[in-house]
């Protein structure tokens, strides 16, 4: 009962936040310099052309009417028609979504594996050389720009040692796994730097707790202790962060997609901006916001399920 009420309240908040996001993008785009008509017809545009296109798109109506129509369509999951692609923005977004989704899952899996391995190693060999080396990962990693890491991986693993393709996207699961490895690894390097420190800290906290002492006194050591008793209790904050990273990636990994020329939501967003394609931009931004809000709610629920000590309030 409490859980249901909590869920409803969180959903209510999410809807308000989402409405604010749509209002923000609407206002911003209306304030943008340049007109949509120019984006469609290019530089040789007559005044009549502009008037005609504006009329077709309903851009000659009062702002309030435009906003009303927009919200009405939004409720039906319709972001309007893309002026550059000549079809519903939703369709265009849905064709780009799988690439981004695949990349996001791939990156999160790589990040999770590397983070857990490094953090467990550091925690087990606390204050020894391994630990100190792993602890300096964030010091170096946090300042690394994504586009540079991507370019370096491209240079080393696609040009110098031609193990991976240099960009683009091959079809099929295996093709995806192969072509998206370098982009996912780029994101993995950066996010591991963010996560490894906090996971190590919470592992150490659990290792110091009394029930781990009890488990040890019963003779439990090594991987069994870590996997059964320590990791499940220490990993919650990391799961939260991974969830947020995943949600953030659903808006498109702008930079990585640019480096590796991937046809995902990030590339779509950039080209949408450049061509004043309001429907596309609004669609991607709203989709990203929905993803982040949903993931947040799911994380809260997961927390209360996984750790009964956390109440929903």
């Amino acid at each position: 009962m409490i859980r249901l009420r909590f869920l409803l309240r969180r959903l209510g908040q999410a809807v308000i936040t989402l409405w604010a996001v749509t209002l923000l993008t609407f206002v911003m785009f209306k304030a943008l310099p340049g007109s949509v008509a120019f984006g469609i017809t290019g530089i040789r545009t007559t005044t009549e052309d502009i008037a005609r296109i504006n009329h077709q798109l309903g851009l000659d109506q009062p702002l309030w009417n435009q906003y009303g129509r927009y919200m009405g369509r939004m409720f039906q999951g319709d972001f309007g028609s893309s002026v550059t692609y000549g079809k519903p923005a939703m369709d265009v977004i849905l064709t780009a979504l799988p690439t981004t989704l695949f990349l996001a899952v791939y990156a999160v899996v790589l990040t999770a594996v590397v983070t857990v391995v490094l953090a467990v190693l550091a925690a087990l060999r606390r204050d020894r050389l391994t630990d100190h080396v792993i602890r300096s990962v964030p010091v170096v990693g946090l300042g690394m720009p994504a586009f540079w890491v991507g370019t370096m991986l491209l240079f080393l693993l696609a040009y110098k040692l031609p193990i991976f393709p240099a960009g683009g996207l091959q079809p099929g699961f295996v093709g995806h796994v192969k072509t998206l490895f370098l982009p996912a690894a780029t994101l993995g390097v950066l996010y591991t730097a963010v996560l490894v420190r906090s996971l190590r800290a919470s592992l150490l906290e659990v290792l110091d707790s009394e029930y781990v002492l009890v488990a040890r006194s019963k003779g439990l050591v090594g991987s069994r202790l870590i996997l059964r008793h320590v990791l499940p209790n220490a990993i919650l904050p990391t799961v939260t962060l991974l969830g947020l990273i995943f949600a953030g990636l659903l808006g498109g990994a702008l930079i990585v997609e640019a480096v590796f020329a991937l046809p995902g939501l990030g590339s779509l967003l950039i080209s949408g901006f450049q061509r004043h394609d309001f429907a596309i931009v609004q669609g991607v931004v709203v989709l990203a916001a929905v993803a982040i809000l949903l993931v947040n709610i799911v994380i809260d629920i997961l927390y209360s399920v996984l750790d009964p000590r956390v109440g929903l309030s």
Partner: protein
Amino acid sequence: MGTVGTVGTVSRAIVEPGAVTTRRVRLFARARRSPWALRIGLGIVTIYLAVAVFAPWLAPYDPLAQDVMHSLAPPSAEHLLGTDSLGRDLLSRLIYGARIDLLLGAAATGLALILGTVLGLLAGYFRGWVDLVLSRLVDMMMAIPAYPLLVLLLFLLGQGTGSIILAFAVTGWVSYARLTRGQVMVVREQDYVVAARLGALGNLRVMARHVLPNVTTQVIVLWASDIVLAISAIAALGYLGIGIQAPTPEWGVMVADGQGFLLTNWMLATVPGLVIVVLGVGLALISDSLAARGGRR
């Protein structure tokens, strides 16, 4: 708490008898904890600042001077790091780039810091509707991924340094506001703040003299790590072609320019990125040491 800690330490000594520190490890550990980390960090950042300030005297060439006859030249005595596709001296462009990236990074995060700290202070101190409005605003900002929002703002504000600073301030104030608000909510209930408020001191005075000083260390720690991310992001916008524009020697733009010539001269794309990474290490060392000093680990 104390007993649990002791039990933990003792247990580790029992269960891990091999946990004897070697000399190498001790050196490493001491280096991390000692003021040396802070000194090295400050040293790195000082060098960068000096390079930015004295760029015209340090740079061997004009960073914009083209020499197409000697384009993509490998490192030599005349051009220590070689030249780019338009024959411009890479070293000179890196040196002048320090001016652009450091200035933009500091200004952008500085404005975000001021905005966020003030808003967080007001919300945490007055609570009520101020807090409510701010919290909703923070929720909304957190729901929009940072890069799409940055790009949206840049297209709205037009390109240029002023727009970049403003766009970063609009997206960046949130973390400062959250940090400050949380801290202030704790501090405002402390006896000395309550006493100051019960005395005839005005709200402004109480906030400035009794509340704000308790927040500054953590805000500065956040700032040091934020600058790294901001410089990285400014460079990323330059790389995407929507930040600082082409002829200007900006590190991100330089990586983007060099990417096409990886096979001819790999240094063009590599060195500007390394320059950012080293600066990042410097700032991370500073913020880590400050955080450790403030008791936060």
